């Protein structure tokens, strides 16, 4: 007897008990749908974190001044002015593994321009900053070395600032006042969205570091040119740990620290924090998939249960089939195909429900989702395997019936 004939017999048997078949399938449908949805939600969350890491700037190290101790109280990172603009340039110049090193001065202030009035943060930066922090100029131009050299009063606006000041109008070429200092807007920045901590990364203004120092923050030019932080991007493929060590070595040298003396700066590797987050979201996703798989297993047991009932109910039919010449393996095939058909149809419906559910979650809950073909194939394979695995015992039981006893069964 060929497989096609077995399939036809199986489909007929399933049609005869429509409600029962449907309820049995429900277990598999829910299981498969749950696996697909959970994997999609899990990998969506992972994808989002990955894109945030990319947006933050991959291989990013943030260099901050060290902490001060004042009357026995440590004042926290960045409270000492030990870091200078020259440190930032030296890192760029002397360490080959560094792709971009951007010293940054940070400040906040009121910005007036267009029809708006907005309080925001500004960063005094060098052209390397764009590369280090993955900022892309959306309109206009970026900063040039001569802007730094001449302390030009030019600024680039983040998306949030641009919209608050100018609405939908084009801000490029407009003049604004930052802390009452007049600036010309030379460009806008591409949107980055929220940071992992929920901060609006687009609520920012970038200007030349020299302009920020000399014209906005008003530091005396004679003093050391201290900076708030240095953003350092390590070249792709370079070892982050080794790069970090080289930077530390260089800075200790430049700051003339004796061996045994504490660092007067701190290096933070943000990608590591995010990588840990990514790992935890991956584990969460796996956990969700594991829980969903349990429901698939329960669905499989449902199939086994109903197949056992079916074999008992159809003992006479089995006896008759054997009397007219069915061998044990024909009966085995028949019931195995029946269980597998049940599982595969359930699996296909489950895929439809799973994809629908995933899309619905993406639409209504606004969660990031990522559908891919692998979990779908996995779920179908799993469903078929469940049919074969859980169908085998009842099918073997049927195939081992003695024809004479099966025929007499009441």
């Amino acid at each position, binding site marked *: 007897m060929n497989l096609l004939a077995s399939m036809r017999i199986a489909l007929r048997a399933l049609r005869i008990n429509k409600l029962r078949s449907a309820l049995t399938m429900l277990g598999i449908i829910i299981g498969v749908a749950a696996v697909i949805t959970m994997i999609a939600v899990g990998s969506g969350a992972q994808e989002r974190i990955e894109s945030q890491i990319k947006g933050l700037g991959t291989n990013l190290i943030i260099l901050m001044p060290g902490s001060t101790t004042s009357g026995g109280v440590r004042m926290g990172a960045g409270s000492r002015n030990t870091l200078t603009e020259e440190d930032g340039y030296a890192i760029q110049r002397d360490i080959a593994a560094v792709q971009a090193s951007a010293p940054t001065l940070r400040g906040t202030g009121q910005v007036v321009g267009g029809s708006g009035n907005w309080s925001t943060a500004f960063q005094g930066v060098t052209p390397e900053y764009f590369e280090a922090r993955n900022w892309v100029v959306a309109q206009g131009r970026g900063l040039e070395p001569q802007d730094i050299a001449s302390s030009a009063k030019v600024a680039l606006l983040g998306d949030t600032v641009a919209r608050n000041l100018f609405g939908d109008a084009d801000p490029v070429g407009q003049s604004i006042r930052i802390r009452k200092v007049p600036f010309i807007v030379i460009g806008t920045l591409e949107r980055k969205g929220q940071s992992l901590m929920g901060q609006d990364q687009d609520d920012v203004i970038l200007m030349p570091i020299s302009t920020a120092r000399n014209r906005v923050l008003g530091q005396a030019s004679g003093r050391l040119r201290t900076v708030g932080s240095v953003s350092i991007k390590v070249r792709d493929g370079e070892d982050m740990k080794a790069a970090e060590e080289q930077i530390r070595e260089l800075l200790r040298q430049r700051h003339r620290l004796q061996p045994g003396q504490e660092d007067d700066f701190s290096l933070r590797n943000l990608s590591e924090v995010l990588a840990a987050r990514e790992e935890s979201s991956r584990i969460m996703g796996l956990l969700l998939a594991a829980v969903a798989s349990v429901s698939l297993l329960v669905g499989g047991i449902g199939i086994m249960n109903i197949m056992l009932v079916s074999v008992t109910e159809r003992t006479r039919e089995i006896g*008759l089939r054997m009397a007219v*010449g*069915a*061998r044990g393996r024909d009966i085995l095939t028949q019931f195995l195909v029946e269980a597998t058909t049940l599982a595969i149809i359930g699996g296909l419906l489950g895929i439809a429900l799973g994809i629908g559910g995933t899309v619905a979650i993406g639409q209504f809950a606004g969660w990031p989702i990522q559908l891919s073909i692998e979990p779908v194939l996995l779920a179908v394979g799993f469903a078929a395997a469940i049919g074969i695995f859980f169908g085998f015992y009842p099918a073997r039981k049927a195939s081992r019936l003695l*024809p*004479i006893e099966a025929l007499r069964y009441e």
Partner: protein
Amino acid sequence: MSSPLIITRELAKSYELGGLSVQALRGVSLAIGSGEFVAVMGPSGSGKSTFMNLLGCLDTPSSGEYLLAGERVSGLDGDALAAIRNRRIGFVFQSFNLLARTSALENIALPLLYCGVPAAERERRAAARLAEVGLAERGHHHPAQLSGGQQQRVAIARALVNDPVLILADEPTGALDTLTSCEVMALLQQLNRGGMTVVLVTHERDIAEFAQRVVTFRDGRVVEDQRIAEPKDAAAMAAQLRAGAGVNP
């Protein structure tokens, strides 16, 4: 007498029932020729059903020998017995044993499914057999839509579909009224006249008298083996019954 189709030598069968060994069959030696119409009679527990099951290769003997068409059947394994049932024997049961919710044609074609006959050929042969039993227009009816007599005729068509050498009928009229019984017996007689060997199990003398030979069992042994010189004609009796009841043929 024609050459023996069935030969049994000291065929015996015992069962274990609750720790007790029950001798259902105590050594039966019998020869049945090709083209014979034999009725097996006996009260319940006489061993006639056990004997039928052994003839039908549905069960294996505890001892003794069984040859069907010259082939030694006793001692074959399950798959080989299934193949013999499939190709050489046609079964007719008291309760018809048709598959519910399955058309008459598909029921008839069932044995062909298990010997690899392609679908188109299965349908052609099933239709031919259905016509032979006079139900050509009922091919797509399900058993529940057929009368008892019609169901039994479908079952006979199924028994014939693989051109067996032997028809085994186990109380084929047990669930039917007198007229329908006569019609079914007429069909078996007609097949027998065409050369088919028929072995019939019954406990009704009336039915046994349609056969050419009556073998009576008691306590697991053959106690009487009687030839009937002039078997009753079932077709004639059916016609008579129909006339008596005022039913048009």
